[in-house]
C-alpha cells in the first residue's frame, strides 16, 4: 500500500520522464508489442467495481507495465529490477546509464523538432510557447488573442499530428 502511494506522488512529479524511462527500457529489453498485449489483457481483468477505485489510472497503467518488465526479467533469469524498484528508477532518472538509448533519444528529439517546425504557424507557436517557454494555456491565449479552449485544441491537434508522423517513421 505504501508503495502505491509513493508511486502516485512520484508520478505526479516525474510523469513524462518516468513513462519515458519505462518505455525505453521495454523497447530495449523486450518486444514492446508483446508488452502492450499483456498490459491490455491485465486491464481487461479489472473488475468493474475495482475500476472506480483506481485513484490514478495512468499511474496504474505504468505500474502494470513496470511489473511486467520486472516479471519478464525474472523469466529470462536476468537481474530483476531490484527489490527497491523506486529508488533504482529515481537513480536512473538522475544518471541515465545507457548511452545508446540517449543517442536514440537525441535523434528522436531532432525528428520531433522538425515535425513541430512543419505544423501550421499557429499550432507551432502554441506548442513552442507551452513546452519550451512553459507558458500556461491562459498566457498563450492572451498572447495569441484566442480562447484557452482553442489553445488546448491546437495542442491536441499538433501533438496528434506529430504522433502520426512519428508513427510513419517507426
Amino acid at each position, binding site marked *: 500500500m505504501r508503495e502505491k502511494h509513493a508511486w502516485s506522488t512520484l508520478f505526479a512529479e516525474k510523469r*513524462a*520522464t518516468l*513513462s*519515458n524511462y519505462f*518505455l525505453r527500457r521495454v523497447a530495449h529489453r523486450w518486444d*514492446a*508489442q508483446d508488452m*502492450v498485449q499483456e*498490459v*491490455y489483457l491485465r*486491464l*481487461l481483468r479489472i473488475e468493474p467495481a475495482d*475500476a*472506480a477505485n*483506481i*485513484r490514478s*489510472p*495512468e499511474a496504474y*497503467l505504468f505500474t502494470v*507495465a513496470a511489473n511486467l518488465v520486472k516479471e519478464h526479467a525474472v523469466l529470462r533469469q536476468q537481474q530483476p529490477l531490484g527489490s527497491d524498484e523506486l529508488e533504482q528508477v529515481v537513480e536512473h532518472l538522475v544518471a541515465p546509464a545507457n548511452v545508446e538509448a540517449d543517442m536514440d*533519444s537525441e535523434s*528522436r*528529439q*531532432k525528428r*520531433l*523538432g522538425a515535425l*513541430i517546425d*512543419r*505544423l*501550421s*504557424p*499557429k*499550432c*507551432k*507557436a502554441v506548442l*513552442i510557447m507551452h*513546452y*519550451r*517557454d512553459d507558458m500556461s494555456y491562459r498566457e498563450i491565449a492572451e*498572447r*495569441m488573442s484566442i*480562447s484557452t*479552449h482553442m489553445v*488546448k485544441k*491546437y*495542442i*491536441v*491537434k*499538433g*501533438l*496528434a*499530428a*506529430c*504522433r*502520426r*508522423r*512519428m*508513427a*510513419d*517513421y517507426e
Partner: protein
Amino acid sequence: MSESTHFDAARQARRISEQAVTWYIELQEPLGERQRVAFLDWLRTSPQHVAEYFAVARMHGDLKAASALEKLSAEALVEQARHENPVVLFPKVGRPIPLERDTHAVRAGRGKRLLAGLAGVAAIVTLAWLGVTHGLAPGAVSPQREVQNYAGKNDAVRSLKLADGTLVQLDRNSMIEVHFDDHYRRIDVIRGHALFDVGKDVTRPMLVNVGGHVLQDIGTVFDVKRDPKGDTLTVISGRVRVLNGSNASPPSSDALADLTAGQQIELGPAVIGPVHPVQIPQATAWLPEEIRFQRETIADVARRFNAYTVKPLVIEDEGIAGKRISGLFHANNPQAFVAYLSTLPNVRVIEGADRTRVVAAHRMRTE
C-alpha cells in the same frame, strides 16, 4: 485493397492518436471518478489504444527538448502566426497546377528540383506549402489519396460536407474536384460558383485552385465565382491574403491585397481589380433563401448560416455543437437562429465584435 480502405485506416489511426493525446492532456489535472473510469474503458477498448497511449507518453517526454530546438522567440512565433491568413495566389491565368508533378517533386527533392523544374506558378504554391506542411521523408509511407468529383444539381444549390468537415455550397451546373490525402487538402473549382466554409485541420492545409488562382485557406468562409471574363473572390468572414504567384518569394513578402469580411476582388486574366466592399446579401444571392434542417447538428446548422454573414456564429461547447435539431429559418436572419439557440437549456450567447460565441452556461463561472 481499395484506396478508401487505406484512407479509412489512416483516418482511424489519426482518431486514435487524437484520443490518446486528449487523454494525456486531460490527465495533467486530477480526474473525477467518472472520467477515470472513462479513461480505463477507453484503454480497454483495444490494445491499439494502449499502444498509442504509451507512444504519446513517450513522445511527450521528448517535447521539451524538441521544442527547445526552435530558435525563434515567442514574439516572432506569434507574429508569424498572425500572418497565417488564407492566401490567394495569382499565377498566370489558365495554367492549371500540375498536381502529380507537384507532389512527386515535393516527395523527391523537397524544393530544389521543384524550383528548377517547374514554372513559377507551381513553385510558389509549393513554397507556401512547405511553410506549413510536410514533405514526405524518403522511405515514409506513401500518402493515401482520395479523389472525388462533385457536380452541382440542375435545379438547386447543392450542399456538401467533405471528409474533413469542409462545407461546400455548389451552384447549379458547377463542378469541383476534391483531392485529399494525409498531408494536404486540395480542391479544384472546375467551373461555376462555389462557397467554401473550410473545415479546420491545422495539419493539412487546404489549397483551392481556381483555374490558376490558388487559395490557401485556414478556417474562413469565402465565395468563388468562375467566369471567362474574370473570376470573383468574395470573403464572407475571416481574412484572405492575395499574393502574386509569378514572383517566387515567400508568401509573407509580396501581398497584393488583404481582404477581410465583406470585401470582394475581381481576378481578371491580366488585371486585378481593386478590393472593394460588397453587400453580402448581394454576393450570396445565389444561395437558397431558406435554411431547412432535419436532425442536423447545431454546429452544422450554424455553419450554414455563416455562409450569409460577416459575423460568424461559433459554437464553442462540444456538447451543444453535437446536439441535433430540426427547423426552418430565413437565411438572412441569423439573429432568429441565435435567439432560438439561447432558449435551449444551458446555452449562453456572447456577442463579440466580429463573432457570436455560443458557450455552455456553466463555463461562464470558470472563464
